[in-house]
């Protein structure tokens, strides 16, 4: 049994397909599901919306993160781990563009995610992701810029824009 966090992001689009796909996992794992705008209620602990600070804590604590192909992917990778990722599809009215699918293809090619293109295969993906070695991101992402560096860069940009 692994502690698994499932998150569909905080945007206005539902992602019922992913929530339904994780339902069978509730019987075997310690799951928490952030359901967002989805109408499906999973048979395990869940919440529609989570403040960002709490989400950061949950991401750090979870052994496995299953997420849509949004910004959460980078948050997990910054923690040195490989997320299991399912892309929202515009054709299924799960988002308004093809950006998640193209982003996931790029990340999959780079080996930075465990991409799941058919949600029926999600339990198998979780089973193959149970060992720490499978979840560890190598090579690690470069560290995020420091607050000081970020401020310095943006000060420079804004000074240039403002003349």
């Amino acid at each position: 049994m692994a502690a698994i966090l499932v998150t569909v992001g905080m945007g206005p689009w539902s992602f019922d397909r992913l929530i339904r796909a994780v339902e069978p996992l509730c019987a075997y794992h310690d799951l928490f599901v952030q359901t967002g705008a989805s109408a499906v209620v999973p048979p395990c602990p869940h919440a529609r919306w989570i403040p960002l600070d709490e989400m950061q804590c949950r991401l750090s604590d979870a052994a496995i993160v299953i997420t849509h192909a949004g910004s959460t992917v980078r948050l997990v990778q910054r923690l040195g781990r490989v997320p299991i990722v399912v892309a929202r599809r515009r054709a299924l009215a799960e988002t308004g563009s093809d950006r998640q699918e193209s982003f996931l293809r790029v990340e999959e090619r780079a080996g930075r995610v465990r991409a799941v293109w058919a949600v029926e295969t999600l339990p198998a993906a979780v089973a193959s992701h149970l060992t720490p070695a499978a979840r560890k991101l190598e090579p690690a992402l470069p560290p995020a810029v420091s607050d000081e560096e970020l401020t310095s860069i943006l000060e420079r940009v804004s000074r240039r824009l403002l003349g």
Partner: protein
Amino acid sequence: MVIVSGSGGVLLDTLALRPWWQHQETSWVAVRAADTEIALHGLPVTWLPDPPTWPHLVTATWRAFRLLGRRRPDLIVSAGRRLTVPFFLAARLRRCRRCGWKP
């Protein structure tokens, strides 16, 4: 400075710039959603609807043009698209500086 943000990843991107904007005189224009309401609580926010399709661009740009006329910001910052494009167009008309952020 005016920061324009939608919901979801765009909000995360703009919040990531906090070390910079927290020291500036900042107001927000945002799409009302669960995450924006939580994250921007206590900050000066003008809530606007998310323009759903391109035919609404003209209306959204006119709304942005009027808002920028009242605020007169030196700089507009955003990471998004749908709410951002009208603001960047309006900023162009107002000759206001724009700062797009694409991580």
